[in-house]
């Protein structure tokens, strides 16, 4: 088989890459190891409402519920509420990831991309050191596909980058290990995402409660792998649910395990090769969210592939347009949030409680470094020392903006 481009992985980043490549006239195929796009779901299913502006998804079938804001709970239970008016377009949707992923794949197919399911890519084909295709296995058949461009959209467990000589191995310090239940029959509804932080509750991560409507909630946990132990996320999640009055009588209709890179992005371009989405470590280090960057990065990757095929140049230099553009769109934020992650990991529960107490009445719509500092100094002057690195960062990013 011959294609211009092979996209390994049919998640959001892969499907969007294939769609925009196909729309630029590229002959492209998506290879997906699973037997159904989007299943099993491996995600908390939250996405920013900024997605509305991007014309990536049609209709509303993929939306489970629309959020009005977020509530963050510190270890002692102090709540900081971010309402829609305060958080602006940063509020989110809770989505059905299976439908969401299939919708993106459908758009890729409609644009002309081929899709092959149940297909495991087992290696790259190299001719005189140059990547010229992939080896794959489907049912009991082994086969090869020749292509000028290979896209690694193969998620957190990505092999494509490694095979091309890019070091994508994550340090345990850079991985959140996750478990999530979907609980139903809960006598309670909400339009707020809830986040619970604390060293005992979820070391180096958080617990989330995302409402899906119809008395159904995603309740999940992420624990930093360097602070975790065998089955610890599941144990801590079970404990949280049994101690939580609204949740403890819920019935589980889904259990999933997950892994989220909270790392700095890697090198994403080589001759004849691109990495997108979680494979490129394009998830946010504070929230673990990776859907928006997968959609934005996928579009840039697809358009870059279009230009490469048009000019018949597949070298690193040509494909680097992709890296330059994603860095401009979200690269700075990924790096900044990685630094914030490192600073926040040093906070003990006492600091988090003081921080929440200072912020619980803070008006985020008037956000400025100065007003934030005032809010902190008034209540807990000792916080200032701990927050110095964070405030420095805010100053820098404010000056840039």
């Amino acid at each position, binding site marked *: 088989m011959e294609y211009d481009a092979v996209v390994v992985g049919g998640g959001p980043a892969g499907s969007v890459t294939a769609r925009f490549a196909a729309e630029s006239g590229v002959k492209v195929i998506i290879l997906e*190891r699973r037997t159904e796009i989007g299943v099993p779901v*491996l995600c908390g299913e939250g996405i920013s409402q900024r997605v509305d502006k991007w014309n990536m998804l049609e209709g509303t079938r993929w939306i489970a519920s629309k959020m009005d804001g977020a509530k963050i709970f510190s270890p002692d239970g102090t709540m900081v509420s971010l309402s829609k008016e305060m958080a602006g377009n940063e509020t989110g949707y809770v989505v059905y990831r299976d439908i969401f992923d299939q919708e993106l794949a459908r758009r890729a197919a409609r644009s002309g991309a081929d899709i092959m399911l149940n297909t495991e890519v087992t290696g790259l084909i190299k001719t005189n050191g140059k990547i010229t295709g992939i080896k794959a296995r489907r049912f009991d058949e082994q086969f090869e596909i020749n292509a000028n461009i290979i896209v690694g959209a193969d998620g957190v467990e990505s092999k494509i980058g490694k095979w091309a000589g890019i070091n994508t191995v994550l340090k345990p310090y850079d991985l959140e290990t996750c478990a999530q239940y979907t609980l139903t029959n809960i006598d309670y509804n909400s339009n707020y995402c809830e986040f619970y932080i604390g060293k005992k509750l979820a070391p180096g991560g958080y617990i989330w409660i995302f409402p899906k409507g119809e008395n159904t909630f995603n309740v999940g946990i992420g624990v930093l792998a360097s602070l975790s*132990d*065998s089955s610890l996320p599941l144990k801590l999640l079970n404990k949280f649910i049994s101690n939580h009055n609204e949740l403890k009588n819920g019935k589980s209709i889904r259990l999933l395990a997950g892994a989220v890179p909270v790392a700095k992005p890697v090198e994403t371009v080589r001759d004849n090769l691109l990495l997108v989405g979680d494979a490129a470590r394009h998830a946010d280090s504070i929230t673990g969210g990776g859907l928006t960057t997968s959609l934005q990065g996928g579009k840039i990757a697809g358009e870059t592939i279009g230009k490469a095929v048009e000019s018949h140049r597949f070298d690193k230099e040509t494909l680097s347009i992709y890296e330059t553009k994603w860095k401009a769109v979200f690269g700075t934020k990924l790096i900044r949030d990685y630094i914030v992650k490192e600073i926040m990991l040093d906070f003990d529960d006492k600091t988090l409680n003081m921080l929440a107490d200072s912020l619980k009445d803070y008006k985020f719509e008037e956000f400025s470094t100065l007003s934030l500092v005032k809010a902190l100094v008034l209540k807990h002057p000792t916080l200032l020392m701990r927050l110095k690195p964070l405030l420095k960062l805010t100053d820098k990013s404010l000056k840039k903006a």
Partner: protein
Amino acid sequence: MVKPKIKINIKICLACGGCISICPQDALSMISSKAYLEDEKCINCGICIKTCPIGAIKEDKK
């Protein structure tokens, strides 16, 4: 060759891919949507055991 001490219970594995992403030896892969360990590459560091969110990877005590 050191006898590998790590064992994956594929009946428990939910294919999250976490262990594959952190293995410093690239000894783990996803085969038929389950984590698979290549014994000859494994150095028994145990990082994957600690990383598994649901306890599908254990020390093989046999």
